[in-house]
């Protein structure tokens, strides 16, 4: 490979890494992160309440994995990862424009795509950590009697992988929205709780236009539980196809975000 191209690639990755570490540190300190950390702990609180009520009641004990699956379906997949990806994804660009701090970044010797990818990676990692902490705690609390049953950890890993893919995919989409729309949050809310919530229940191949379709296709077959109506009309795509589609969508929106951010002019209002 030509030395110059090699140097450019190295420079690009070094710049991206520097942006990543800057925004990872910064992202962990913001009020927004602290508030969302609290929200992501709601299922842990719920798990504790359920467990305590099970301990102190003499009624029929509900299987921990069953409750855990429902929690993932209702709270994480349909709500939390969407909200987290929306607020963190759109803010990759929009918080710099609204806070007028963009000027410090675009007057540094870093390629604009390196900034986008670096900050996206930092914020995505923060969101994954937030979700993972809540999921793991909930899992441990709900399965405290069966922690030595290692087959249950497979389920935990599978759910975590699905949620991670969801976060990567939604965040890249919302980041793209944030790079060119001023009211990206509003659009994002409409997309999350309008489009995604409706299109996934359409029959036939139309449901494949919703990201959540691919995420649900990756869930274990028994994951519906009491909330099996959420899998209503799901005509699952194959796991390979689902993973491919989620990665493809992520990649497309990452590239589009880089292109828009490089070409668009951001006017910082005085």
């Amino acid at each position, binding site marked *: 490979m030509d030395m110059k191209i090699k140097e450019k690639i190295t*420079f690009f990755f*070094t*710049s991206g890494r*520097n*942006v990543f*570490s*800057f925004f990872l*540190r*910064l992202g962990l*300190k*913001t*009020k927004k992160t602290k508030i969302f950390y609290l929200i992501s702990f709601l299922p842990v609180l719920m798990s504790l309440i359920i467990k305590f009520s099970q301990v102190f009641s003499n009624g029929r004990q509900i299987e921990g994995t069953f409750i855990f699956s429902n929690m993932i379906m209702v709270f994480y997949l349909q709500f939390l990862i969407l909200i987290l990806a929306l607020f963190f994804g759109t803010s990759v660009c929009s918080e710099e424009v609204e*806070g*007028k*701090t963009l*000027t*410090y*970044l*675009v*007057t*540094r*010797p*870093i*390629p*604009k795509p390196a900034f986008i990818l670096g900050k996206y990676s930092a914020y995505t990692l923060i969101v994954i950590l937030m979700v993972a902490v809540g999921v793991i705690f909930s899992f441990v609390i709900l399965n405290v009697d069966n922690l030595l049953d290692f087959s249950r950890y497979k389920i935990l890993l599978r759910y975590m992988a699905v949620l991670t893919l969801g976060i990567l995919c939604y965040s890249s989409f919302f980041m793209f929205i944030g790079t060119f729309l001023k009211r990206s949050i509003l659009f994002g809310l409409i997309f999350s709780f309008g489009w995604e919530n409706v299109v996934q229940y359409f029959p036939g191949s139309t449901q494949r236009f919703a990201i959540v379709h691919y995420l649900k296709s990756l869930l274990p077959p028994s994951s519906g539980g009491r909330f099996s109506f959420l899998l209503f009309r799901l005509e699952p795509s194959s796991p390979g196809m689902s993973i491919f589609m989620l990665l493809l969508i992520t990649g497309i929106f990452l590239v589009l975000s880089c292109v828009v951010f*490089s070409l668009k*002019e*951001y*006017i*910082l209002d*005085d």
Partner: protein
Amino acid sequence: MPIIETKNLSKWYGNVLGLSDVTLQIESGITGLLGPNGAGKSTFLRLITGQLKPNIGTVKIKGKKVRNNYSLFSIIGFCPEQDCFYDELTGWQFLTNLLKLHNFSNDEAERKAQEALEIVELSDDKNRVIRSYSKGMRQRLKFAQVIAHDPEIMILDEPLNGLDPLGRRKIIRLIKTYQREGKTIIVSSHVLPEIEAMTKKIILIHQGKIFAQGNIHYIRDLIDTHPHIISIKCSHPRELASKFIHENYVLKVHFAIASNSLLVETNNRDKFFSQLPSVLIENNIKVDEITSPDDNLQAVFDYLIGK
């Protein structure tokens, strides 16, 4: 070869004209960009740093196009006008992180940040969060991020805003030091004496157009033909008026009895101010306030363009 070169540079925001047909060549040394608020100074500085796209025209720095040419920014330092920061960070974290974006190693970034903070006298407060900084400290921190990576070209948008007189003098002295090191510095301001204290090369900008350009004496002469009104709030306004009324550079004197103040209209502001202290001392007149209500660039520009 000029360091910064613009050709027919024009920018508008919808129907609002930001900058119109600006062709300039800026060489090393300090160049003052002077104009009233809304004249187009910030637009010009954002265009030459590639933050905005010109509608018409070109910008080149050292012969290279600026927009999306990230490698140029290793030799440019930019101080924005807005008071914007990552408020959750400390001054130290802010500076070291920005330096790391220049690909400096941790040690190098820390060394450079420490040097810059010492220069702007913020090293004692470096571990405080920026949110707790005063306006002046924030302004000095903005200046620190300009100088920290030792750029060849410094572009400073109203760098003296919010600084106390002592802070202003220090920054002006610093800017002059960098000029002696051979750097190219563009400073914008809407306050003539600030620019005057730094450089003789100035560009007057008004309503998005370059109004005049050249040596400060030429522009000073233009401006000096404009009468200035000076308001003095003091213990004995009538006595003070009697001492000046016969001077040929004093055109009119008015009284505002209710506020115990005197309005003096002069066509030689410098001479008036050189005489004022001795008159005040000799006559034992106590002064509460001296302001110059007319001394804003807008009034001067309006006068010069014959409004």
